[in-house]
């Protein structure tokens, strides 16, 4: 059975060019970039080139890119930077952030910090006005995600960054889902820090970066050696970073085509589902949206069952249903955009990517109807 992978927001397969770049580095560029011999110096040069590639994707300067082990570390680090460089006890974020932001902030609340979790609108978005109104005297950080990983809505982060800048407050955005999926130009905005992750843009897992604007004071989250201008210790994962750079290069070259093609497929998939299945709700913003994100809730059925039946047809998808996460409640995102439990439990996220074909979309549209139908027949809730 053919696998139809529609879970690109969870992780992406690596592109062949990326695999080749990493494998080549495995074989030929194994040096420690801190070593002064030729094997080490070779690694150091490649590290710098990689930094330039990643910087180019977001219109940053190379020295504003700090490599990490992924989006989660970058998020945690951004918070630590605010904590350790700014006096104050108040942080503003949204109620629909990824756990990589919410959980470290919850840990800080236990240590006496105050966190404002801004409520979101029906699309999961916040406005610059909301953010402005939440600022207090001792606000040290505003962190608002660029694109929501579940429902794909794009926040007005550039405007929010302006508000933050006017108040002299650090502004961080979790850009993990945005990178490579929308144009980002750091030279034209006032974002202080942005988290990135390679494995969401066809790069390797375990590699990410934090963009830190020139002039922002920095402290390490992970202390040790003098790598990354002394603020992120640990022998650099050169092959992984080279893979990230290759993925960034491809993302930059293909950005316009990528967005156009994916948006087309996305809308086709959305229409194919919504026109066919009654009692379904399409979530997330209709236009300000991740190009590959389709998110629907089907009444009367439960998400995990839906995923399992889709999987039996080879279709890989995801859900914000409670059962998939082992928690009682459906995802905080679905609850916070105001969905009832009834509808939130039946959530389905299909995320498309560069290997998704028209045929894949057609197959999913074909298969999903009978599956929803079957689960509804089994459900005691169906009216």
């Amino acid at each position, binding site marked *: 059975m053919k696998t139809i992978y529609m879970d690109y927001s969870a992780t992406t397969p690596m592109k062949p060019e990326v695999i080749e770049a990493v494998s080549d580095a495995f074989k030929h560029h194994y040096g420690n970039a801190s070593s002064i011999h030729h094997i080490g110096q070779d690694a150091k040069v490649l590290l710098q080139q990689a930094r330039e590639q990643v910087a180019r994707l977001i219109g940053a300067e190379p020295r504003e890119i700090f490599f990490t082990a992924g989006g989660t570390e970058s998020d945690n680090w951004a918070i630590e930077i605010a904590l350790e460089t700014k006096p104050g006890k108040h942080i503003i974020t949204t109620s629909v952030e990824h756990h990589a932001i919410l959980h470290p902030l919850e840990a800080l609340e236990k240590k006496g910090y105050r966190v404002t979790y801004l409520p979101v609108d029906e699309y999961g978005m916040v406005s610059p006005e909301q953010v402005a109104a939440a600022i207090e005297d001792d606000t040290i950080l505003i962190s608002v995600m660029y694109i929501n990983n579940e429902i794909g809505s794009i926040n007005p982060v550039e405007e929010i960054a302006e508000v933050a800048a006017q108040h002299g407050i650090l502004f961080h955005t979790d850009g993990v889902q945005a990178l490579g999926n929308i144009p980002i130009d750091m030279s034209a905005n006032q974002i202080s820090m942005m988290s990135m992750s390679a494995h969401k843009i066809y790069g390797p897992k375990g590699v990410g970066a934090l963009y830190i604007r020139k002039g922002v004071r920095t402290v390490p989250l992970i202390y040790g050696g003098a790598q990354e201008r002394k603020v992120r210790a640990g022998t650099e994962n050169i092959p992984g970073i080279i893979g990230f750079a290759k993925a960034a290069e491809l993302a930059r070259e293909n950005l316009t085509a990528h967005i156009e093609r994916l948006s087309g497929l996305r809308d086709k998939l959305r229409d194919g589902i919504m026109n066919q299945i009654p009692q379904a709700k399409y979530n997330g913003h209709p236009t300000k949206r991740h190009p590959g994100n389709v998110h629907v809730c089907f009444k009367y059925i439960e998400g995990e*069952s839906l995923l*399992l039946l889709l999987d039996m047809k080879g279709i890989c998808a995801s859900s914000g249903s409670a*059962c998939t996460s*082992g928690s009682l409640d459906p995802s905080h995102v679905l609850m916070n955009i105001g969905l009832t*439990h009834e509808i939130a439990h039946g959530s389905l996220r299909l995320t498309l990517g560069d290997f998704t074909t028209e045929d894949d979309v057609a197959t999913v549209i074909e298969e999903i109807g009978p599956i929803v139908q079957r689960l509804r027949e089994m*459900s*005691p*809730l169906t009216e």
Partner: protein
Amino acid sequence: MYNKKVMDHFMNPRNVGEIADPDGMGEVGNLKCGDIMRIYLRIDPTTDVIEDIKFKTFGCGSAVASSSIATEMIMGKTVEEALKLTNKDVLKELGGLPTIKVHCSVLAEQAFKAAAYDYATRHDKHYAALENYSPEEAEHDHHHDEDED
């Protein structure tokens, strides 16, 4: 995630459906928790043997599989015998569930109890196992253990 038997019962659930004019019917779970199970019983009033059982479930894979296997285990037993089945038996018969899913097996036990109670009330039957049973308190009790191993 699930073993073969669980997947088989999920993919090909036994005894799905409704019984018109059932002798007993019970429903437990709630929308908040994300799983609801309804059981219909057809019972021979003289022998107390469960002649037919059907279920409808809203829930995850293990909720469906637990429902399915529980109906198989219950079918043909007397109400008294069937009331002795616990979620442990369901779990065992399924060959185990992931820790975070164990609570789903409780659903089947509770739904059957609710249906048997309905039957007992309507047919004025008494079962030791239902002596202290109260439908209000029987709310399917979720105690998620989130440890994944």
